[in-house]
């Protein structure tokens, strides 16, 4: 069926909750309101207030409670209203969610999913445009996933829900309703830990994820007219990263540009570039460039475009790599 990413995520949640009553959903306004983006719309009517839980306004509370729920065999799905509000739960995530399995040598674990709207580009208030994935990609024990289209959103979420590891599932706000796509009715897993080649090309590899993938496609079209063939690697799972897929592409093209909206310094682009430099140096015909948000606080709506990476900025970087 043709649907938006919001509908695809909603369907994945509904189908998995239908299949397995260990899944419970909790967060602020996920019930009657259906979440501020309507991602959980209709679920409380279908599964009841016991399994679709409006929590008090406390993120550490929601994540911490979810950890305890796992002990009794549930599979909680926590919605954080915006990524900018996940920080109160940071201690629970890094100190417990990610470590429980190791701490108890496998006796206990926290196979929960934390979903949250992610990224800028929607003219939002402060704190509503965060893309701080790199904070979480460095935490051993966590899996961090970002879909780039409705079908992948469903497949990756299904896989995240079935994973025995805690997954941070970042939903690009900008893609929620941007594009409709045919999404398979069945709940089929898209493999975690596997990147995909979103567009083939022989001249330069662009590594991107989430809302940056459409940006990369636009740039690739422009560049195609200039006879530059861009290969786009959509990471999908940011951590643990599919380094092999990135390296395979770079070994082929000899050039790489990493694209993300988070600030440059210590963003995931640094890890991608470092990995390429470490393991594919001799394949490189040009430096690995990073096209990212600047090292500033995400500007408010009226200046957001200055910050948000554009196809033009990416194209310029690719040309620089080609001309190096």
């Amino acid at each position, binding site marked *: 069926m043709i649907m938006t990413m919001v509908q695809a995520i909603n369907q994945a949640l509904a189908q998995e909750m239908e299949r397995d009553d260990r899944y419970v959903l909790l967060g602020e306004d996920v019930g009657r309101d259906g979440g*501020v983006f309507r991602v959980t719309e209709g679920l409380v009517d279908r599964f009841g207030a016991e399994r679709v839980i*409006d929590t008090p306004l*406390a993120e550490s509370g929601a994540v911490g409670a979810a950890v305890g729920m796992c002990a009794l065999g549930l599979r909680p799905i926590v919605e954080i209203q915006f990524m900018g509000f996940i920080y109160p739960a940071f201690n629970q995530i890094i100190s417990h969610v990610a470590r429980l399995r190791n701490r108890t040598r496998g006796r206990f674990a926290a196979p929960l999913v934390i979903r949250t709207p992610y990224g800028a580009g929607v003219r*939002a208030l*402060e704190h509503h445009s965060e893309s701080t994935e790199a904070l979480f990609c460095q935490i051993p024990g966590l899996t961090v996933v970002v879909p780039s289209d409705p079908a992948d959103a469903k497949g990756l979420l299904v896989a995240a829900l079935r994973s025995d590891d805690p997954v941070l599932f970042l939903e690009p706000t900008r893609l929620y309703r941007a594009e409709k796509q045919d999404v398979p009715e069945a709940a089929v897993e898209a493999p975690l830990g596997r990147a995909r080649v979103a567009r083939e090309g022989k001249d330069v590899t662009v590594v991107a994820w989430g809302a940056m993938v459409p940006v990369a496609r636009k740039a690739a079209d422009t560049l195609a007219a200039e006879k530059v063939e861009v290969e786009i690697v959509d990471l999908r799972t940011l951590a643990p990263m599919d380094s092999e897929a990135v390296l395979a592409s770079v070994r082929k093209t000899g050039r790489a540009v990493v694209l993300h909206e988070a600030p440059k310094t210590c963003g995931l682009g640094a890890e991608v570039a470092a990995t390429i430099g470490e393991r594919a140096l001799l394949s490189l015909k040009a430096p690995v460039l990073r096209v990212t948000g*600047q090292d500033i606080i995400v*500007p408010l709506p009226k200046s957001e475009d*200055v*910050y948000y990476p554009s196809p033009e*900025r990416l194209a310029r970087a690719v040309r620089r790599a080609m001309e190096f």
Partner: protein
Amino acid sequence: MIERFDPLKGERLQILDESGRARPGLEPALGAADLRRMYERMVLTRVGDAKALKLQRQGRMGTFASSLGHEACQVGTASAVAAGDWFFPYFREMGVYLTLGYPLADYYHYWMGNEAGLRTPDGLNIFPLAIPVASQVLHAVGAGMAANIRKLRLAVFSTFGDGATSEGDFHEAMNYAGVFRTPTVLVCYNNQFAISVPRSRQTASATIAQKALAYGFAGVQVDGNDVLAVRAAATEAAERARAGGGPTLIEAYTYRMGDHTTSDDAARYRSKDDVLDWEKRDPVARFRLYLASKGLWDEAWEKGVQEAAADAVEKAVAAAESRPPAAVEDLFAYTYAAMTPELKDELAETEAGLKGGRR
């Protein structure tokens, strides 16, 4: 007066009943000018708020949090602020900003999507409005600790919603306030909702005021649609604070008459009847009846107040919309006290990229 109303007994301070009659013995000694100024601010808040909603629908304003129904909470609280005091607001505060003399044009400018609008004018002690729920309450308590350390006799106000009381930061702030006896006036606008979550699902405590018991200081519940009650409680709490008597928690019991923000649709989760029911308790109308009963109100004066408000609002909108967007440099210049070499490079690169409209 605060101690006379015990939240555990379900007692609530109300000075004006729903028909605007003052309860004997509780009526404050406020002059005509003061009373009228409060009313003017409540009206300005309402008119300015309605205008913001209109602009938002027209695409001239960003996501906006309406203050409709909170006029008594906001103007009543801010009316207790004296020179030298500090205010740490949350994000639903038009009446506070206007009462404290913050330019409406700046307030609009911010909600239109410009950081510059949040630059408090020099001389005003208002911290930038806080979006991460409850985080600002700690700032107010810290400012109170600083006032104690520096031996300054001032009161520090902080406002927040009922939902905010669930956050860890609210608790840590309340606990620090109690331990350090900070001169803080903590005002909770209990408007019965945190977006869609009703007060009853936010906490099992019968009142929010009684939460002060967990921290060793006084809490009182007041009628948040009665501007005199809010002002009286806030004023007494502020005087106590300035006199070294420590913090007070005030629960202003009210109702969010509008959607949570312009991105919300309250019809999804609450019944029209509740809303209609609360319209009867409208804080502006109630205060108007009181002024009329004291001979301080008539149609002519009302007309003037409304026109003055409309005029001020139009001027503010014009001013806000006439301002240029932030210079690109401003997006970089305030990250650190001085721009780092890397930031200068990024700025140069960004400006170069913007040449010819290309980014």
